[in-house]
């Protein structure tokens, strides 16, 4: 496979994952704005921070409002990381690696682009927000479904999945880091409305509200939420889950190509940490420090794979 193709496949799925995560974040923002209007502004700020879009947003807007943030994250072309641009980039990468995809996957990406271009061609009215967010998640699911249903499980598949999980791990870690202070055991007002809002935001943003309840019951403890999203290997958006997958796909590439590369050692080291560490140890070391560390190592792994598999040169 061409190095360029490996890069295109990885980035196609990074952009797909990113647009889906953005849709979830915006959904969370709206939910909180509806149920706890007093908290709306500060939660929209967290949403922007989690999406790494706060600075850009503030450069173009004086005030935070649901409409303005929604427009900025979904379709404002001034925001390079808006959903519309993510989908555009995803499709451009798909076009570039057309020969590495099945016809079904390509068509799912192309239809995703056609549908969302249409849905996001003008400002989304508040009434229409749920439908449009649903559409983004649904189209993303179609792409994932056609990938799982039709792609050969070869190196091309490995690169698509590596892109997905490096991006997802980044998103989950960032979400936790923006909210790390409410997860600290020392934070005051455990069980208060304030904390419940913030925890709800965290769980909703990763579509994990129900699964958390299923695992931990109705009592939300900061420690359990952190543990659930960092260490629980059953939770498909947790860091441990992502790294279990990343480790597996890199292992597969190693066996396929017969060459062990620096990215393998880096991934192994991160995987080992998840096996070795406990949530208490993480809190002891400092949650913020741990997450910052993780974000850096995850980004380094992404860059190392680009070098090792010759995405660009």
């Amino acid at each position, binding site marked *: *496979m*061409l*190095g*360029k*193709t*490996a890069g295109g496949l990885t980035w196609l799925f990074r952009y797909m994952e990113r647009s889906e995560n953005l849709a979830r974040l915006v959904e969370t923002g709206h939910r909180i704005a509806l149920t706890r209007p007093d908290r709306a502004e500060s939660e929209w700020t967290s949403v922007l921070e989690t999406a790494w879009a706060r600075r850009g947003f503030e450069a173009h807007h004086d005030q935070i409002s649901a409409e303005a943030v929604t427009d900025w994250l979904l379709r404002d072309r001034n925001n390079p990381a808006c959903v519309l641009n993510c989908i555009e980039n995803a499709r*451009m990468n798909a*076009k*570039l690696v*057309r*020969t590495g995809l099945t*016809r079904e996957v*390509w*068509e799912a990406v*192309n*239809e995703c682009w*056609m549908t969302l271009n249409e849905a996001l061609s003008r400002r989304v009215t508040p009434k229409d927000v749920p439908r449009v967010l649903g559409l983004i998640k649904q189209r993303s699911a179609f792409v994932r479904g056609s990938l799982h249903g039709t792609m050969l499980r070869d*190196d091309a598949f490995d690169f698509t999945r590596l892109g997905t999980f490096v991006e997802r791990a980044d998103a989950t870690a960032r979400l936790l880091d923006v909210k790390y202070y409410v997860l600290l055991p020392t934070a005051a007002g455990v069980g208060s409305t304030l904390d419940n809002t913030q925890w709800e935001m965290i769980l909703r943003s990763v579509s994990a509200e129900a699964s958390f309840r299923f695992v931990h019951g109705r009592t939300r403890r900061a420690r359990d939420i952190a543990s659930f999203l960092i260490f629980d290997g059953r939770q498909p958006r947790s860091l441990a889950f992502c790294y279990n997958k990343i480790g597996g796909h890199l292992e597969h590439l190693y066996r396929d*190509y017969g*060459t062990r590369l620096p990215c393998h050692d880096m991934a192994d080291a991160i995987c080992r940490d998840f096996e070795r560490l406990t949530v208490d140890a993480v809190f002891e070391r400092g949650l913020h420090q741990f997450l910052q560390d993780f974000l850096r190592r995850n980004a380094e792994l992404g860059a190392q794979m680009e070098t090792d*598999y*010759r995405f660009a*040169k």
Partner: protein
Amino acid sequence: MTDTPYFDEMTNPDGSIRDAYKAYEAWFSSQDPAHLRAKAREAEDVFRRTGITFNVYGDPDAAERLIPFDIVPRIIAAREWARLSKGIEQRVRALNAFLHDIHHRQEIVRAGLLPVEMLAKNDAYLSQMIGVEPPGGIYTHIVGIDLVRTGPEQFYVLEDNARTPSGVSYMLENRETMLGMFPELFQQNRVQRVSNYPANLHSSLAACAPPAANGDPVVAVLTPGIHNSAYYEHSFLADEMGVELVEGHDLRVVDGRVAMRTTQGYRPIDVLYRRVDDDFLDPLNFRPDSYLGVPGILDVYRAGGITIANAPGTGVADDKAIYSYMPEIVEFYTGEKPLLENVPTWRCSDPDSLAHVLDNLEELVVKEVHGSGGYGMLIGPTASKKDIRAFRKKLESRPANYIAQPTLALSTCPIFQRTGLAPRHVDLRPFVLVSPDGIEITPGGLTRVALKKGSLVVNSSQGGGTKDTWVLGDD
């Protein structure tokens, strides 16, 4: 009933249906027009979803456009095709012999049949190719011969595309679309298959592997990139052949071979089906500002390290001034009378011809010698007085840049419209594969159709559409 001077391929002047279209016409008359309209829309959706689009240069609002597809097939009888394909094969044989000769002993010049300026002053003629033996002896592996029809037995070659003919993906996708939409038509009509084109393309490229190749030849398609107007076709062909689609920046010369950057290091390529023009192929040997090519590829080629298809320099044969010599070229190299006719052509470089052309601009078609895509041409009978005046000036200032031909009464085929069937002008581009094992012509080709009433310009860049083209099996 028609009372136009144009030959219609479906309906005779007396209103009766020509044999090849009889079964189709019977089917068509039994269809509900509303159902057919729905099918026509469905076809458009299929093309859009599949991404069968092309880019129009200089039109940012329409970055990606569909080529309109018409659901009425163009149908060619087995007997008609047999005659055409003999003529095409003869012409392609002559083209390859011509390309070999002009890069070696230039017998045709010595024989006094072709003025040496036709080569010496030709930008497409590459001195770097003189004396080079292309692997397998083939210059033009993939050829598109543009044909037009003016009567039941009257076909003309309009131009030869020996450099990088495009459109074959439309031929294949049009057929797939028709098979999906109207399967019953293919039970009622014996239509010859086109679907083995990609496999044939692969084996004919592989058959031209260079001396340096060992084992199964590694084939790749070279594209200028995703912004090129024919990118869809490049990726389609690579995908269908199961080979890599590469760009210049994926390639470099490693140990005397052209190699592509894979996830596991550089791997040599044996045969490169390039869809990049000569000028951009090698910045060391041609345009130094090109990012689309591979520095040094021409040196590897000359040393037998890679096969480039089509060979550099084949553009000479696309030249419209050379075209005017094709009857002599065919006869000189095959020893036979040409089976396909050339359109009579005035070379404006010749003062007498130029005078004639200037006197008759209202009736002629004038084309640039190196033009393509329907750009930069004048169609006298439909042009305004102002256009003709402007063109006259261009022609007078650079006569050698132009040729002129009579306006041909192109045949018509019906297209499907809201009001029913309506005749529109068509041409045909059959696709030909050449390898040391022989010449292979896919039955049919790409039919391009001018969708505007009365228009004679079929190019997609000028608003033309396409049709599925059927060659019927033997009766």
